[in-house]
């Protein structure tokens, strides 16, 4: 049964998500697209978290992706799809170079450094003059699919599918064991022959690649990239809160969290335009205190407890 559920649930969810634009009006579609953006970011963040490294730099690589897509389209004349790929590649390459230094850091030192990096990226773009468009940023002359909302939604859904696939591959392969071992105890991991730096690099580069891709797609929605818009800390905090709420170290967790918090965020924005950030803060604190494994973690715990009951057939 559990094997069937493992396939049926994602396939049905994906089908519903893919058909959603055919039924939804413009406003629900826009909300859903932003939920997908955060969902992909939440999954990318969880990827690195599995190694125990907490990144506050999501907005940094997301923003680099948006700028790369804009610059490569404006200066190299890349078509939108290729500029999105370039966004991922540049974000990944940047992560690889920076990773050589910052992946030697751990815990709060790593977290603070990633936060600072995102800010450094923003300041560089702000002061880049004509090359980066300065504080006004860059404006795109044309957009993917001419900015058609449904097509844009499907593009974002593709990013979610890509993130989900990478996340699931990490969970099913030896990467899960390597990253979990590193998170639990580096000394023990090394004594099992795990090269910690290599695995951290794989996770960091993959995670940044996905964030860059999502940034590249985001550019296509608004048609411009400015330092204050694409490096907004919102792009770090909301995905992080979603992953925590839904359940970390898993693929379904960030998806569930993004759906719930993404829809709630939109609703709260309408109800309390200036106070909604406070509400997320409260949600994050409550989740960490009451449900440290998140909703999916609680669900997994229930399933395990049920399967462990005497007399239950585990086939």
């Amino acid at each position, binding site marked *: 049964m559990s094997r069937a559920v493992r396939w049926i649930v994602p396939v049905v969810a994906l089908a519903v998500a893919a058909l959603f634009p055919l039924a939804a009006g413009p406003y629900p579609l826009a909300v859903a697209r932003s939920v997908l953006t955060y969902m992909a970011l939440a999954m990318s963040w969880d990827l690195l978290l599995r190694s125990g490294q907490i990144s506050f730099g999501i907005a940094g690589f997301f923003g680099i992706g948006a700028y790369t897509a804009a610059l490569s389209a404006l200066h190299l004349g890349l078509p939108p799809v290729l500029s999105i790929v370039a966004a991922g590649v540049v974000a990944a390459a940047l992560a690889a170079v920076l990773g050589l230094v910052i992946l030697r850091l751990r815990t709060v030192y790593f977290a603070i450094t990633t936060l600072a990096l995102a800010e450094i990226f923003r300041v560089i773009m702000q002061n880049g003059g004509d090359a980066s468009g300065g504080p006004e940023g860059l404006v795109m002359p044309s957009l993917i699919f001419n900015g058609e909302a449904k097509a844009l939604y499907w593009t974002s859904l593709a990013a979610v599918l890509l993130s989900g696939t990478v996340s699931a591959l990490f969970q099913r*392969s*030896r990467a899960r*064991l*390597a990253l*979990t*071992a590193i*998170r*639990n*105890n580096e*000394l*023990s*991991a*090394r*004594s*099992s*022959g*795990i*090269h*910690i730096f290599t695995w951290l690099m794989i996770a960091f580069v993959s995670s940044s690649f996905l964030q860059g891709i999502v940034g590249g797609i985001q550019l296509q929605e608004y048609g411009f990239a400015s330092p204050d818009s694409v490096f907004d800390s919102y792009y770090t905090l909301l995905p992080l809160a979603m992953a925590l709420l839904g359940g970390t*170290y898993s693929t379904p967790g960030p998806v569930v969290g993004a759906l719930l918090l993404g829809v709630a965020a939109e609703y709260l924005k309408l109800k309390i335009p200036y106070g909604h950030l406070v509400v997320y803060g409260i949600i994050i604190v409550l989740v960490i205190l009451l449900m440290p494994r998140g909703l999916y973690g609680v669900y997994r715990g229930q399933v395990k407890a049920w399967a462990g009951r005497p007399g239950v057939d585990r086939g």
Partner: protein
Amino acid sequence: MADLEVTGLGRRFGGLVALQNVSFSLSRGEILGIIGPNGAGKTTFINLVTGVYAPTSGCIRFKDRDITRMPAHQRARAGISRTFQIIHPLESLNVLENVMLGFLFCRRMRQAEARRAAEVLCRSLGLEGLGRDVAQITMLELKKMEIAHALATHPSILFLDEVMAGLNVDETRDLVALVRGIARERGIGVGVVEHVMSVIRDLTHRVIVLEAGEIIASGPYESVARDPRVIAAYLGKETAGGGA
């Protein structure tokens, strides 16, 4: 020619000399006891040989290769393995997954293959219930898992850092037999750090005694245990008269 040859090994931490001029060798199938009072440098010694830190002096040769500067994960792959005095089970993995690691990352097996190999290894050590979380298993099972975790890397040299600590008499006897079997049947050179003297006496072919970071005696247990320096330094006044 011994498999592991250590000459003049030393390590300082700032002004503190944790270990100096330690030389010894260990061959496959041999069981070497490493004893000494608390703080003598036994765990530092294992940390140096397994690559947790680099030595500040001396040389480590393994199978005719200089490995003094080799990183820890490569030494594990080359065949030097260990258990930890303070056990570090990976609490987010179950028992089987803990044991699979060495098969996956040292022997480069595929997951299904590593799973089967880990099951066989655990069973050969009398470890069952492999789907359990590590928080649910007994101390003896934890020790066995720790040994299986080390054996999975396919070592030729294995250091056991106080694996008998915290076990009762029956469990200790069980584990002594297990370690003896590991050395004989798998042809592994085993270095045993232990405070329980009866274990050292029953198990080892040879003993080195560390005090304040230096080797003060070496040889078979019987001769080392009679050495006046050892008695003074290690066994202490209470046990000096009656034997340990």
